[in-house]
């Protein structure tokens, strides 16, 4: 059904480590700097490509304001020493922003209007909280019961999914434990080393004794979220945080995080011109809408939509990066679609690795691309649920 004129290939993919928010390693690192770091790291993977040849940089960001406002894409790329001729756009579809950025970048190439594009994502949840610095609701949300779901925080939507899909607390906690276990194993065996570009944090503090500024460099090279000793016993002791008699806790929800990722895409022409090694072919991307109050079920509709669009069978998808916004919604999606648990988040998910909202899509695309290359998988998917009731899914084919 695609009417593209050419294919878009991923030729580089890199990301920062993911820090915990709001008190983690990147609490003082600006999201535009994290973005620039990811862009530079991706560019170093394709030394033959001149920076000025990048047609456009599409950056996902879920709360694009304050430190990540003012078109963070353009500011981030300029500060990362891209020439003035390279343009940048910030896009926002909450948690799918990073994946959506990759899809938009791919589409510019598929349409034949660009040869080299970057799709990226950045988010500092330490600096800009969920919802942004100021929320002002439209009073029409409350005019009737139909739209009240727009008002619900993500935790409430997770509780509603847990209730409607009957996902018990112990299943959610067990899922979270497994996420940590997989993530820790992946870190131990160096699975993330291909994709992570270590970031040197330079915290500056006042030394009141010596009356001078002290700079403390700290090289961050691993994700901060995965926590050894996460057992079902420990998680069972946590209290629900969103509903008095609920099942969703801080332990079986994704972590708030800081991070950035970037993916470079190129056309056949550009690949031949620069003698690049393509890593994966971009196959397709789809978004589906669901009621806002059960936003977590979104992937259930986005996944079949992208499979139909690309004419690929679910059983042929070897690796699925399903963003673990909450264990409750992850399990509901996995169970309803009959996803193979072994193929979903083999290196752990957002419950352990963290979820820097608008960056997650680009970060997990990076994980998928390098992972499929190492394991010689053919098809891989990145999918997530989206606040206000949507799901997104992107499909990639390993060609490395």
């Amino acid at each position, binding site marked *: 059904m695609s009417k593209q004129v050419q294919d878009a290939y991923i030729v580089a993919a890199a990301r920062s480590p993911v820090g915990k928010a709001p008190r983690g390693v990147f609490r003082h690192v600006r999201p535009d700097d994290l973005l620039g770091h990811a862009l530079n790291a991706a560019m170093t993977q394709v030394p033959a490509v001149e920076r000025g040849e990048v047609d456009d940089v599409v950056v996902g960001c879920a709360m694009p304001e304050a430190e990540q406002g003012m078109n963070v894409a353009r500011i981030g790329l300029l500060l990362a020493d891209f020439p003035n001729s390279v343009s940048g756009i910030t896009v926002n579809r909450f948690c799918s922003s990073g994946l959506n950025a990759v899809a938009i970048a791919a589409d510019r190439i598929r349409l034949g209007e660009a040869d080299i594009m970057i799709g990226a994502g950045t988010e500092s949840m330490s600096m800009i909280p969920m919802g942004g610095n100021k929320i*002002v609701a439209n009073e029409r949300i409350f005019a009737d019961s139909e739209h009240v779901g727009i008002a619900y925080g993500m935790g409430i939507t997770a509780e509603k999914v847990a209730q409607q899909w009957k996902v018990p607390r112990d299943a959610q906690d067990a899922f979270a434990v497994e996420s940590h276990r997989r993530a820790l194993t992946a870190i131990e065996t160096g699975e993330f080393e291909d994709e992570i570009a270590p970031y040197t944090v330079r915290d500056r503090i006042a030394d009141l004794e010596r009356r001078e500024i002290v700079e403390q460099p700290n090289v961050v090279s691993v994700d901060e979220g995965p926590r050894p000793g996460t057992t079902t016993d420990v998680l069972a002791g946590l209290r629900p945080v969103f509903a008095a008699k609920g099942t969703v806790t801080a332990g079986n929800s994704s972590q708030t995080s800081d991070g950035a990722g970037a993916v470079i895409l190129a056309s056949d022409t550009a690949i031949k011109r620069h003698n690049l090694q393509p890593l994966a072919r971009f196959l397709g991307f789809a978004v589906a809408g669901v009621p806002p109050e059960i936003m977590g079920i979104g992937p259930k509709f986005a996944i079949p939509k992208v499979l139909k669009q690309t004419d690929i069978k679910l059983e042929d998808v070897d690796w699925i990066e399903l963003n673990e916004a909450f264990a409750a919604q992850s399990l509901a999606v996995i169970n309803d679609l009959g996803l193979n648990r072994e193929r979903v988040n083999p290196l752990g998910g957002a419950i352990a690795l963290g979820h820097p909202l608008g960056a997650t899509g680009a970060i997990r695309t990076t994980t998928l691309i390098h992972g499929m290359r190492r394991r010689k998988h053919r098809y891989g998917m990145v999918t997530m649920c989206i606040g206000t009731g949507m799901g997104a899914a992107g499909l990639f084919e390993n060609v490395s």
Partner: protein
Amino acid sequence: MVPTVAAVDGMALGGGCEIIMHCDRAVASLESYIGLVEVGVGLIPAAGGCKELALRAAGEAKGGDLFPFIRRYFENVATAQVGRSAEHARELGFLRDRDAVVINRFELLYVAKQQLNARYESGYRPPLRAARIPVAGRGAIATLKMGMQNMLAGDYVSDHDYLIGSKLAHVICGGDIDQGSLVDEQWFLDLEREAFIELLSTEKTQARVEHMLKTGKPLRN
């Protein structure tokens, strides 16, 4: 043209608190428990308490974003916060910077009289009624409701709590008008009265009032 000074010792809840808020000065002994607790009986402050808090919020915002100040006062009243001491009541906004706190309660009346005399001798004139008060408006009402909807969905508050909270938000934000619209004090007083009557005509508020009169304890319904 005489100043009014409230001398406060012990409990000043609901109407007592509203009287304090309207005096030119308050002098409170440290062991005073001041708060607007009307929601406990299913009502909202309707003797100028909401009006006074909205007025204070507008003053504190100094023409900037009113919402953070309004939200703080809204939360204090919606959760029936009572100051654990006179200084805590000041933190909550029920006492003002200019109000005095005495540690020794036996000095309370002495200090209050001193204040009264000083105010009188320095040529006291009552303030004019505020006539141009910017309101937080309908966007702020919706934003406060948004928070309450999540508490309702999470079973932390009842439907009636939500109704009371919505009425309080409506009043303290100045009603269903645009942010920054200018109103006078009477505008708030009218909103207070309207919301008070509406709540009092509900069965659940009547049950709360009755329960409080009979048992001295609040009823959650």
